């Protein structure tokens, strides 16, 4: 297991006071978050706390209403999926964003196809996809030219993660990658998450499973009703404290100030 370390270096990705509303419904309230290279940050929170909304904001799917996003210390303006991709932010969505009618290679390169003039460069795309899958030690795919519709849940998850890694990404965000998986496939995905961090990626890992969180995470960030209750090294908390942060927004002297937490609840 990775040794928890004190905060070091500059975060590769930092959010400051991010707000996001859908119509009259404010989902994110002044959210701060720091994500470090080589670290897995577990983003936790109850259903509807705003985890998916937060990462979709980072990805440019839902542009933010207020606050700041810093990448490598510099303020950036992310207004679409291409902007985040250009910075090296890759997201594996909860509702996997794969096209069932395309094969594995086609999905991995979707929107960023390699070309030879006008022609798609199928050969180099297939080779790169295959190499990436092999590097991630993915051994369960029969063919990289298999349609995604014929893959199991775990295989889809693997393809989605491999797609994120293919792009020399610096930040990889995974929204509940193990939620629908069995024991063995969860194991594979957790190993994959750890390997991503060990190779220098900054990883954000959303999960409701505390066992998984404590197994792979270096830091934990807890969202409570759209507010960031804590963003700390996981060594500073134990499991019941994290659960308190998730359900009540505070635990002991960590979390949202009592007055504020009370205000949130009404």
């Amino acid at each position: 297991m990775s040794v928890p370390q004190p905060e070091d270096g500059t975060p590769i990705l930092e959010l400051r006071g991010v707000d996001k509303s859908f119509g009259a419904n404010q989902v994110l309230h002044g959210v701060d978050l720091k994500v470090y290279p080589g670290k897995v940050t577990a983003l936790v929170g109850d259903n509807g706390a705003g985890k998916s909304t937060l990462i979709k904001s980072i990805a440019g799917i839902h542009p933010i209403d207020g606050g700041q996003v810093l990448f490598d210390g510099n303020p950036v303006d992310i207004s679409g999926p291409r902007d985040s991709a250009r910075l090296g932010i890759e997201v594996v969505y909860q509702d996997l964003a794969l096209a069932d009618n395309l094969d594995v290679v086609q999905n991995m390169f979707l929107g960023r196809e390699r070309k030879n003039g006008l022609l798609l460069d199928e050969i180099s795309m297939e080779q790169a996809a295959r190499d990436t899958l092999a590097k991630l030690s993915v051994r369960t795919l029969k063919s990289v030219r298999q349609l995604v519709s014929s893959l199991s849940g775990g295989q889809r998850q693997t393809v989605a993660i491999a797609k994120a890694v293919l792009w020399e990404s610096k930040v990889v965000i995974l929204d509940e990658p193990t939620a629908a998986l069995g024991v063995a496939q969860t194991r594979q995905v957790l190993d994959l998450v750890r390997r991503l961090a060990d190779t220098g990626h900054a990883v954000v890992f959303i999960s409701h499973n505390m066992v998984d969180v404590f197994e792979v995470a270096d830091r934990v960030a807890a969202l409570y009703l759209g507010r960031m209750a804590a963003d700390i090294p996981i060594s500073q908390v134990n499991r019941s404290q994290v659960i308190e942060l998730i359900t009540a927004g505070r635990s002991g002297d960590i979390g949202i100030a009592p007055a504020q937490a009370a205000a949130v609840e009404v």
Partner: protein
Amino acid sequence: MSSNTISQPTSATEPGGFEADRSADSLGGAVRAYFARVRGGDLGALPAILGIVALGLLFVVLRPETFLTPRNMANLADQAAPIIILAMGLVFILLLGDIDLSAGVVSGVCAAVMAKLLADAGAPWYVAVLAAVVTGAAIGLFTGSLVGLIGIPSFVVTLALFLGWQGVTLRLIGQGGTVPVRDEVISAISDRNVPVTLGWILALVVIALYALLQMNRWRMQKAKGLAHQPLAVVLLRIAVIAVVVVLVTAVLSVDRAPAPGVVLAGIPYAIPLVVVLLLLLTFVLGRTSFGRHIYAVGGNAEAARRAGINVTKIKVSVFVISSTLAAISGIVAAARLGSVAPGSGGGNTLLYAVGAAVIGGTSLFGGRGRVRDAVLGGLVVAIIANGLGLLGTEAYLNFIITGGVLLLAASVDALARRRAAATGH
């Protein structure tokens, strides 16, 4: 936990994973894989080919002395061409999971524009044709914007335009009138033929080119250790194409003049036109990123959007392509009939084209379909229309039968989809 796995210079050819990509060299394996796909609901070109064979046999039996004659085959090609071209455009629309109910009447409007320019303004053929095609593209831009930018369901937009464009054609041509199309170049599409020798040369060039491209791709994939089909399958495919091309050329090279003394032989110009469109559009769909994005939007629009694909742009362009092809279809139909009437492009035109695309294997649910589907399905539809014509069936029966065939094809599509969902293909 091993931290260096990711940096190991692993190669995909090592054991573990991708076994199907490396063991694809046996014909037996390919045949098994094919039947697994069919059982999984992916019927491909199978229904259309079976349909062509079965209907062909049926009409040969019912009309032995007229159906399979070179004259009727040339007529069949002429009949099929406008249906196929319109259906090619609909394949693009259906790939997105949309529909264009106005495609038929758009072909009528564009043909009317061409006919008016030829007859009233005395414009040269190329100006008239260009105007018709530009009209088609502009109409597509309009339809596509209503669907893509404003977000009205394509069903409603094109239902409204179905009525609207008929009004425009009526205004252009006038109640009860017809505008003749007598320009020599335009009529040549349907009543002139490629000289027999040139026809044979073109046929051989097409076969050689196809074989070369297929073999080249196979060699490349094999050399680089990529997924590839067994050689036997590639060769078989080349052989089938070669036989079909040679047969068609041979039949159409026979003198089919109704009276002795004149010679009427060669491939009708409509066929090379369809072949060129087939090659061009297949290239666009299969080999360019634009085509890839069309499939992606049809398969999962949200995934496409998250991948940074401009979904609106894809939608609008697809409607432009479809309406442009509708214009070409209208021109070919006008050349065949020698005139444009207020009802041109109405009636069963659209039903034939949608039927062609779906019978050919394009899904009504989006994401699955190829340009060749329009050709195969268009042949099925044209054979039905042609054969029923030879039998002299009454019009009412003709409508019922063609409508029934479309329903049948749509059922096959829906069942294939359910089957695919059930078997995880």
